[in-house]
């Protein structure tokens, strides 16, 4: 028994330094908790820091902890922290206290912060996260984790009309994981009736669960905090990690997300139960409960544990010859698992050995009601033998067959009439609806072809007088260099007739009957050396001129409408 317990204990021990040595570098953490503000003090941040210190130390971190740090204290702590970080290390920064965002920059509020005259004053009296992230980026740490449990309603933000909460960090580098106790620009709760904030309470507890990736940890934390705050607070996280990070790495071949492994544990636990291997069954059930897989698996494991323990205890009592204790433990087992006909049989044996025949009859009657047909027959055979010594046994048999219990009793652990919600959502994620997103993307129109920038004024200087200044055209992009021959067609918008704001375009193909090579000048820009040419133009009126040797040979106006226009054929 002791050996088995040791095996069980070993299996359940948090995986600490042994596994962490598999990482290349060391784990270093800075934990700061600030409560003692002169304005709006907090009550849980120091407790939060202490809880995190414990949780992180247990997970193999070298933890530098500071409580109620002023600005200089924070700077010194950060310097000490940064000095300890080397290439390949895991660097974790945790802060609980007031923090604010100023100009989209997150700044932590030291305890010696006094009322600020202005935003600039506030910024200089605070502790900016930007240089810390900068140093961490250059430290070549393998993994950087930044956890801020702040964003609590604070006096600085209110005085200077700052945005609530923290800003989305834009300066995070590679291999960085950032978590806030609430989503950017929102305010978190301090949990006034608790010892820790909602966020840190959940975090410190979840870190201790083995084999969870950091993403899994924060998914659970998010869930817990949302539940605790009725959805008012949703922790937020950002990751640029390129490999998995575990506070407690999984043992070889084991993964928290390995649902089939956990299902197998359950299967094994139930099989061991069938064979009466109570200790092994207890071991497996407890491992499942500890892994918190949720759904029917966790529920089943949880519900079996008390029964398994009662049977284990009863077996020990029988082995020791303590029959009266054994009867009580079998009774307990039967209470928890009324269909444990085996317990009823063994209990009746114990009662007979203890010379408690009426109790033996009661237990055999249970078998007659709940057992299978062969078990009923066996119980009736024993009752028949007992009948000579115990009148109750004969009376029981005389009473005839006992009706089996209702189906709800048979499957009393099954939750009839209520769907297994957790499994439902998990299945929807595993087998999502088939939506052909790539084919929807293919059907989307390509980006619109924007007509060449329109020269908004193309004045023609008269022979008599040149304009006083060079004339203005608004050419945004450099025109494609195409040299036209002497003969070309010029297309020019009639000013003020086009709508340049809406997204509509008219498509028109310009053709010529002549077999000569005729170029095209569109809005002052040579676009083609030959016709036909298809142009996309904003709807409106256009002048079409055929120019030969600098002189207009013909001129006409056309209306280009949105969509496809009839071809324009020039003689």
């Amino acid at each position, binding site marked *: 028994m002791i050996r088995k317990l040791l095996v069980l204990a070993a299996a359940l021990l948090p995986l600490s330094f042994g596994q962490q040595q598999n990482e290349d570098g060391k784990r270093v953490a800075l934990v700061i908790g600030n409560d003692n503000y002169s304005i709006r003090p907090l009550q849980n941040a120091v407790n939060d820091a202490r809880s995190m210190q414990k949780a992180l130390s247990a997970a193999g971190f070298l933890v530098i902890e500071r409580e109620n740090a002023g600005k200089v204290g924070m700077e010194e702590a950060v310097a000490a922290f940064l000095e300890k970080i080397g290439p390949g290390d895991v660097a974790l920064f945790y802060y609980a206290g007031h923090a604010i965002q100023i100009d989209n920059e997150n700044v932590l509020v030291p305890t010696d912060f006094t009322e600020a005259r202005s935003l600039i004053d506030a910024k200089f009296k605070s502790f900016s996260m930007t240089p810390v992230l900068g140093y961490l980026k250059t430290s070549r740490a393998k993994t950087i984790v930044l956890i801020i449990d702040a964003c609590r309603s604070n006096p600085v933000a209110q005085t200077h009309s700052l945005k609530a909460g923290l800003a989305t960090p834009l300066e995070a580098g590679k291999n960085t994981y950032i978590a806030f106790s609430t989503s950017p620009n929102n305010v978190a709760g301090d949990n006034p009736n608790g010892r820790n904030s909602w966020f840190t309470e959940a975090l410190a507890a979840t870190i201790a669960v083995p084999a969870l990736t950091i993403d899994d940890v924060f998914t659970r934390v998010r869930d817990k905090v949302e539940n605790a705050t009725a959805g008012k607070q949703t922790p937020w996280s950002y990751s640029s990690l390129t490999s998995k990070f575990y506070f407690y790495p999984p043992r070889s071949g084991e993964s928290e997300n390995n649902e089939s492994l956990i299902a197998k544990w359950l299967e094994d636990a139930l099989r061991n139960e069938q064979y009466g291997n109570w200790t092994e069954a207890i071991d497996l059930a407890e491992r499942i409960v500890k892994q918190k897989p949720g759904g029917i698996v966790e529920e089943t494991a949880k519900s079996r544990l008390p029964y398994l323990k009662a049977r284990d205890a009863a077996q020990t009592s029988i082995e020791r010859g303590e029959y009266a204790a054994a009867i009580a433990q079998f009774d307990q087992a039967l209470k928890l698992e009324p269909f444990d006909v085996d317990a009823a049989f063994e209990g009746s044996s114990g009662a007979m050995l203890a010379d408690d025949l009426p109790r033996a009859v009661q237990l055999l009657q249970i078998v007659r009601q709940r057992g299978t047909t062969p078990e009923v027959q066996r119980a009736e055979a024993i009752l028949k033998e007992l009948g000579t010594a115990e009148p109750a046994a004969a009376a029981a048999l005389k009473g005839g067959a006992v009706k089996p219990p209702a189906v709800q009793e048979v499957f009393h652990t099954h939750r*009839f009439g209520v769907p297994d919600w957790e499994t439902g959502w998990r299945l929807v994620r595993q087998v999502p609806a088939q939506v052909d997103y790539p084919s929807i993307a293919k059907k989307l129109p390509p980006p619109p072809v924007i007509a060449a920038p329109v020269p908004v004024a193309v004045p023609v200087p008269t022979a008599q007088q040149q304009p006083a200044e060079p004339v203005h055209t608004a050419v945004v992009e450099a025109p494609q260099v195409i040299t036209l021959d002497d003969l070309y067609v010029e297309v020019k918008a009639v000013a003020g007739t086009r709508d340049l704001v809406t997204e509509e375009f008219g498509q028109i193909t310009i053709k010529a009957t002549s077999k000569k090579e005729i170029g095209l000048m569109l809005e002052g820009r040579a676009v083609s050396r030959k016709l036909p040419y298809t142009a996309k133009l904003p709807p409106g009126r256009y002048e079409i001129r055929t120019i030969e040797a600098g002189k207009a040979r013909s001129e006409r106006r056309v209306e280009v409408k949105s969509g496809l226009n009839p071809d324009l054929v020039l003689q």
Partner: protein
Amino acid sequence: MRSLFVLMACALLPAQEWTDRAEYDMALSVRAQPAPQPRLTLLDQWKLKYPNSPMRMARAELTLGAAQMLADTGRILDAARDLIAADANSFTGLYWIALLAPSQTPVTPKLVTEAESAARKLLKGADAYFASAAAKNHLPQKKLAIAMAHRTLGWVEWRSNKIDAALVELRAALDMNPRSGEVSAWMGAILAADADRRKKTNAIWHLARASSLDGEGALPAQQRREVRELLETAYTSHHGALDGLDEVAAKTRDTVQPPDTFSIESATEVAARKADEALALSNPQLFEWIKIRRRLTGPDADAEFRKLEGVALPTMKGWVVRCDGGPKPNEVIVGVQDSSIEEVVLKLDVRAPKCPASGLALEFEALPVSLVKDPFRVTVGVELKAIRGL
């Protein structure tokens, strides 16, 4: 209907007599088998031998449980159908059909009809069900169950090409369960195909949210990648390039529905803005006139003109097109954007000695007098002696 649900919930499995002791033995053999696959085999044998057993609802639920452990959605649906066959309003049966129908392939018309019926019954019966004794401890699931029913109805309407109805249902689903990457993705996919500009930008919002949502409710990784690709295509299709997309995605993380003020510049708007910016730099004088002209050719031209009346226009430059009023004209008509197009009538305070040459560039300050909208022409009062270039 309400009473039916109450009845169902209060007496979920009314005490029924076993057909015989042999049926009870079969149930015990199921009970003794924890492994889901052999348990399903035993349940099938039970069903085969006692198809119309009074215990068939319980049996179907047990089958559901075993199939869930195997993640066998086909078997789950079959068991859910058995439940509904035994009781048309079985909440558990309706729940599973509504939940899993959109994941099934192929999608048959029968499946769609089945999903719709299940989802509608769920919505109708949810209040009564969650008020029942069986479900009273599961109240937090109510919103999610209702959200799921709306999501399935949205899927049904989408399949039937009833886009507006689909959007109404999906929006209701998101109202009840904002952290559904799946529903956001569906809304985005539906709206992306719409030519309406507003819907296009809303599509981008929903797709951005679906592709950036992580943790609970997030899409599976593969679908998330596909949605991101669709998002990038939709965004480029509308905006012309990917610049600004990350900012849009960041906005969507904490807000489910696009705010009324949400907009994204179209590619044409970007080009027009850039052209304006270039013109404002290269020829601010002309740009000022173009801004005025836009106001006077817009839908509120008359009101805009009234705002300009009596207010000196910025210095303008125009080219003479022709004159009115005889050899000593009192009106000179000029083009501002184009030297050949009449845009502005300069009404002179005194007659000019002669008509200036066509194409002559003039610079002047003027007060608007009147507006003709078609053909566009603004008459302005000008002092002859203040015209430069004459």
